[in-house]
């Protein structure tokens, strides 16, 4: 499908941003869906130093493998010492049994190794997936594309925007928001927060 952004939605896509120090974003093309021959579908966010992490997850009883695996990782590390989040779009890795769990862990392990962390450590990369339900991930394609996303990491607005685009499925535009701010006790320091999200259908989140 053509993913050009409709005229009416272009006003929602930022042309610049203020991004948090020490974070890098990158994306690559794996071709998770066979019909996707040109758009990036692997997204990677990395921190140069370990970060604290938390997440809220769907309360749907049929939790997808990356939900189960990421929750396990957060519990194991008590929300500390993480380095990355790796995401694939095009396939949700949901209702895929034990192989699905192994594939989600494999995405995390591959990312950890690229960042110089041993597979014997508790995982330092969270995993997310989105797309069709009930199909196994084409894991070889994904594992091959993660190093390309790593090689594409950067901190510019374009890096963030392209990474936001890589997690999209039926979305018509990437959703990226950032801002800088200060805190009352040391107003001379400038902080930043940036977020990107995807979603256009199957949307009624109830996360905890």
């Amino acid at each position, binding site marked *: 499908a053509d993913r050009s952004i409709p005229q009416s939605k272009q006003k929602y896509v930022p042309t610049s941003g203020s991004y948090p120090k*020490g974070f890098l974003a990158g994306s690559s093309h794996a071709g998770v869906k066979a019909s996707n021959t040109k758009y990036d579908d692997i997204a990677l966010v990395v921190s140069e130093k370990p970060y604290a992490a938390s997440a809220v997850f769907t309360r749907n009883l049929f939790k997808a493998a990356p939900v189960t695996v990421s929750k396990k990782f957060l519990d194991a590390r008590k929300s500390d010492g993480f380095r990355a989040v790796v995401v694939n779009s095009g396939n949700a890795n949901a209702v895929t049994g034990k192989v699905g769990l192994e594939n989600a862990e494999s995405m995390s392990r591959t990312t950890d190794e690229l960042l110089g962390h041993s597979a014997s450590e508790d995982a330092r990369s969270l995993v997310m997936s989105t797309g069709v339900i009930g199909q196994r991930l084409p894991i070889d394609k994904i594992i091959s594309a993660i190093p390309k996303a790593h090689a594409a990491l950067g901190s510019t607005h374009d890096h963030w925007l392209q990474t936001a685009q890589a997690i999209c499925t039926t979305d018509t535009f990437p959703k990226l928001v950032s801002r800088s701010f200060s805190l009352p006790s040391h107003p001379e320091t400038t902080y930043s927060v940036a977020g990107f999200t995807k*979603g256009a259908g*199957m949307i009624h989140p109830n996360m905890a």
Partner: protein
Amino acid sequence: TLLGIVCTDVAIEPASLHEILTKSVGTSFNSISIDGDTSTNDTVALLANGAATPSGVKPLSVAQQSEDLAAFQTVLTELTQELAQLVVRDGEGATKFVTIKVQSDTDYMTAKRAAVSIATSAILKCALYGKDANWGRILCAIGYTAGIMDSPETPAIATSQTPVIPNQTSVSFVPADGSAELKLLIRGEPEQVDEVRAKEVLEFEDLEILVKLNDTGDASKKSKYESVFWTCDFSHEYVTINGDYRT
């Protein structure tokens, strides 16, 4: 599916992150609906690496409530709300962005249940697509929420002491251009709606539906609780997209 990744260079204690994130998600990502379907994969992660925090400054902690923590919480909530609203604006086939505000004196959950019920009413969402000021469908959605709350079969959610009272319920459309609200129902009594004006209001992409569950007629009295929820309309395009989406 909703996925979200939020990164900040503020230092935050790992043990505090979940509470901070949960607080913001409650009034942002958990307050939107496009089609009423909760995905198997919804995930929003918050990452804090402390890279901008000067040395000697302690990480934010919920155990030590501070102005800094409150300020960060506000920034995070505003950002997550903006992201959540963008998701609704991109709803499959959506032509309208609808803010639903429900005010109640009973409790927050009464207001939220009514807001969710309105936001997930397929028949109302079709009316909005058709630019029809169909307050009857809004009332219908509120009404069966009240019914469920009163049901002995569902005691787990029967927390509200006072159900929705039809003759205290008012419904208005608030136009996106800041002009006067279009009152559709006042304390259970239908207004004589100017259909031309109603059509004008519904021509805007953005629409606010304001529901007062305990309207006493005293304009100076503010409701104790307000739930804000965001949704969109249903169009032919939604069916086309989801009829075509294949594994």
